């Protein structure tokens, strides 16, 4: 089924040229999924190392927790 674009409230079918361009954009986006997911996970993991977690690094358990996060980040970085 042809794609539709909504122009000022009116649905208009894509032209053949627009379909081709859109196919290329979607393919490029799909090809980058692994990288995007890895970057999103890195951002999430980095965000979990809060000031409280850093203060808790004075304990062995606290150090282990941060080490585990660093290891998880390394796994994701390898996917980039």
């Amino acid at each position: 089924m042809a794609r539709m674009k909504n122009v000022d409230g009116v649905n208009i079918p894509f032209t053949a040229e627009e379909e081709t361009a859109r196919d290329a954009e979607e393919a490029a986006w799909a090809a980058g999924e692994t990288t995007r997911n890895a970057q999103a996970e890195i951002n999430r993991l980095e965000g979990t190392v809060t000031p409280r977690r850093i203060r808790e690094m004075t304990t062995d358990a606290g150090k282990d927790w941060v080490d585990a996060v660093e290891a998880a980040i390394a796994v994701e970085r390898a996917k980039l």
Partner: protein
Amino acid sequence: MATKITNDNITSVDAAKLTGTLPAISGANLTNMAGGGATALIARNTFTGASTVEITSGFDGSVYDSYRLIIRSTLAAAGNMLAMRTSSNGGSSFDSGGADYKNSYWASNNAGGDGGGVGSGSNRLSLHSGNLDSDLGANLVADVFMPQIHESGKYAVFFVKSFQYLDTGNASVGAVRMNTWSNVRESTSTVNALQLFNFGSTTHTGSYQFIGYKKA
């Protein structure tokens, strides 16, 4: 002041004597009214199953200084990102070069992740952060303010506040996310059309309000 009618023309009206309602008056007939900063609804449209949404009319530098675009959209499938592009030829084509835009953001989600940054260059104006690859049924509400679309020799700037919430939560991104963006189209060409589009193969459904802020 008395109410006067001279030769079938109303020349003055005593408000205290006006006990009924005025008839509906076309906005086109309401002239010479102080309007600086007042808002006007340029367009409100709905879209269903659209791959792209384009706004190609309503930009008028003689009437408006600034614009606001309020978007409510639901993506139909996972793996997508809603973004925006500009046009300076009325929508005949939209700017998609890899360094046409620059985006800076701050975002947080309820899984405990916060983050921010400035991109080096982009082929889109971002409306939300991260990606929705693992999420299904993402609802996005975005409020885009455009304060200097018509400023001569200036880049067009876009302030975005958006909120996305997910029908099915995801352990990595959480069930909700808030985003604040300051984005720019790195060109002094006048923007006179906008395109909303998805990265990914899905369509989206929703509505938008396009509002102008009057110059005077």
